[in-house]
């Protein structure tokens, strides 16, 4: 039973992928993707209940393991996955109508998205670092073609950069994993790369080797998480990928990669004490924040803008992780979920906008609020959610991170991070307000009626915002899970 429940998050998308492989994309199969994502979410909820009742579970011959932290990540994947896949049918239909895609492309898109979901689910379910690494590398491979789906020059360029930079980064992580394995091999218990075993054997691991390994792993997985220095693939890939894929990549993939860092950090803290990983993460986080904030200021493309905002948020998450402690970790996890929801909504909304307006330049879009009030409302409130205004949950998580940061004696770093976040937030508001507000242009072109937001897409956007707002008001049933996940992420001192 538990095995089945643990296989479901991977299996359902794989079945969905098979369905698309066999039947292609058509109205009848369009909603399979969302169904699989919903199933994944349901399985995640089921697992959450199981884990809550009877603690961590192991299945599939020790290859898969689930605890509160991974269940929480599964919930993030399921939720944002459901949002993205639910918005996909209308998105793909519009792409096909516009002649930018064919039924075959749509089928391949859906197939790859399912594979993507499966890869991410297996990443968080993996019981050892090797499996985790494979799953994360698999996400690169799967999404490469999604990024390059349009086959335009820009799309190919983005895909190339994406694959080259991510593969390079992830190769460093592999080296780190191998070195960690090497260190583990020379301990009495030989835990291999098993995540639990490594922590258990922490006191016998060689610190010097672990240090090198952790550095490689953090930089490597940091690449996938969009942290500096190997962040540069992110704006290109996010701006070129189809909207649902961008939503998934930004909303979930980055978090999943960061989940890997969290796991590595657990080992690092157990072996080296909190200082090393904290310093590494803080430096990377502040560098990423500074970079994202600087590049956001003069940003001219709203999808790239959203991508840089993802870097900023992952940097904030990294700051929280560097701070450590139950409050910071709970905030980090909540931030992942909140960011996933907000960024999902924003990328889906941005997709709608670029479909209707045919451009992703900020300067070419004006007065959306007057033309498409619902879409503008979703984008506007999405940005407000993203910059951390209540009632959206990012407010609560940013507050938690900041509070923990000041309490942990990292006041200056937290203050710098907060200031940079504020700059980024201010800039986001300025850019988006330029697009949303104002009087619609008069003259030729203004007469064409603005297409209405498809009902399904609108519902998805509203649902995402509502969920984000609800989470910001109260975590409700998630509270317990959040706390136990945070306890796991903090590790045992």
């Amino acid at each position, binding site marked *: 039973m538990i095995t089945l429940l643990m296989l479901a998050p991977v299996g359902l998308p794989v079945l969905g992928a098979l369905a698309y492989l066999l039947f292609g994309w058509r109205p009848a199969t369009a909603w399979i993707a969302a169904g699989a994502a919903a199933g994944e979410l349901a399985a995640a909820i089921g697992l959450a209940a199981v884990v809550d009742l009877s603690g961590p579970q192991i299945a599939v011959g020790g290859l898969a393991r689930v605890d509160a932290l991974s269940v929480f990540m599964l919930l993030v994947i399921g939720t944002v996955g459901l949002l993205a896949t639910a918005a996909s049918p209308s998105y793909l239909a519009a792409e096909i109508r516009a002649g930018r895609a064919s039924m075959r492309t749509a089928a391949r898109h859906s197939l790859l998205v399912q594979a993507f979901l499966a890869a991410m689910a297996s990443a968080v379910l993996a019981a050892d670092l090797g499996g985790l690494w494979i799953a994360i590398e698999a996400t690169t*491979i799967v999404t490469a073609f999604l990024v390059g789906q349009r086959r335009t020059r820009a799309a190919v360029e983005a895909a190339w950069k994406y*694959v080259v930079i991510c*593969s390079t980064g992830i190769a460093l992580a592999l080296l780190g994993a*191998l070195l960690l394995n090497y260190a583990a091999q020379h301990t009495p218990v030989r835990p291999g790369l098993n995540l639990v075993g490594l922590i258990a054997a922490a006191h016998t691991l060689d610190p010097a080797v672990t240090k090198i390994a952790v550095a490689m792993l953090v930089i490597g997985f940091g690449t996938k998480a969009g942290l500096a220095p190997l962040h540069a693939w992110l704006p290109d890939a996010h701006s070129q990928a189809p909207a649902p894929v961008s939503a998934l990549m930004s909303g979930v993939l980055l978090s999943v990669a960061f989940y890997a860092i969290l796991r590595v950090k657990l080992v690092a803290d157990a072996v080296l004490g909190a200082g090393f990983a904290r310093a590494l993460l803080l430096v990377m986080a502040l560098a990423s924040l500074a970079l994202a904030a600087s590049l956001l200021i003069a940003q001219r493309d709203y999808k790239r803008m959203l991508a840089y905002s993802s870097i900023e948020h992952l940097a904030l998450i990294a700051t929280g992780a560097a701070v450590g402690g139950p409050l910071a970790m709970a905030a980090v996890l909540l931030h992942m979920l909140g960011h996933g929801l907000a960024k999902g909504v924003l990328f889906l909304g941005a997709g709608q906008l670029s479909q209707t307006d045919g451009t992703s330049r900020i300067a070419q879009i004006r007065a959306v609020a007057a033309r498409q009030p619902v879409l503008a409302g979703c984008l506007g409130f999405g940005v407000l959610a993203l910059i951390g205004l209540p009632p959206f949950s990012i407010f609560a998580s940013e507050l938690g991170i900041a509070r923990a940061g000041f309490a942990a004696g990292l006041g200056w770093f937290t203050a710098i991070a907060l200031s940079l976040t504020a700059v980024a937030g201010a800039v986001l508001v300025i850019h988006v307000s330029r697009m949303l507000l104002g009087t619609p242009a008069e003259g030729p072109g203004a007469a064409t009626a603005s297409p209405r937001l498809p009902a399904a897409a609108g519902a998805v956007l509203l649902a995402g915002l509502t969920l984000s707002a609800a989470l910001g008001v109260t975590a409700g049933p998630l509270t317990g899970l959040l706390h136990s996940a945070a306890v796991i992420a903090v590790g045992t001192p």
Partner: protein
Amino acid sequence: MSETTYVQLLYLACGGLLLTSVLMLWRRELAVLIRVFAVQGFALAVIAGLAALHHGGIELGAVAVGILVLRVGILPWLLRRAVAAVGPASRETRPLVNVAASLLVAAVLTLLAYAVSRPLVELAPAAATSAIPIGVAVVLIGFFVLITRRRAPSQLVGFLLMDNGITAVGLLTTAGVALTVELGVALDVLLAVLVLQILTGRMRETFGDTDVAELRELHD
């Protein structure tokens, strides 16, 4: 096989590994690069084979065979296809850093690798582990190739060079990772290369060239 033979062969193979890496920095023709890469793959396979013989693991033997197939057979073949498809004009790599400087950098990187790898060697001093720095050096040289080579296929080679280095480190740490993981890793690398090869093709279709440095459309 005696201990000395094993050590000498191991060192020979590792030397080959480093030498081929340096050669890849030296030579410009893509075809030559691929041949050198195949040789390096062979050296890697030898290391794996030696480890299998020395430790007597069947798993390691399978890994050696796998490496042979993948790195001497499939990957050079894929690379050759990628190069063959591009016109003769672009069969030569045009490095962003000239060859002399590249070689100098490679020397520095090797030294850095030695310096960094001291704790690795000290953890379990043995013949194999003392060669770990070479693996690390290959990784760094591979990274360097990645950031200085303009042609898509040569960047691919750089990536594979890194990967070879990592595999070498894995083999030299004598701590065979579980076979499933090893398989997964190999599969991922293969897929990554496949993806990159397909993308090279698309790049040629859309840009008419495979000069990566020309990919400057997406910027701020």
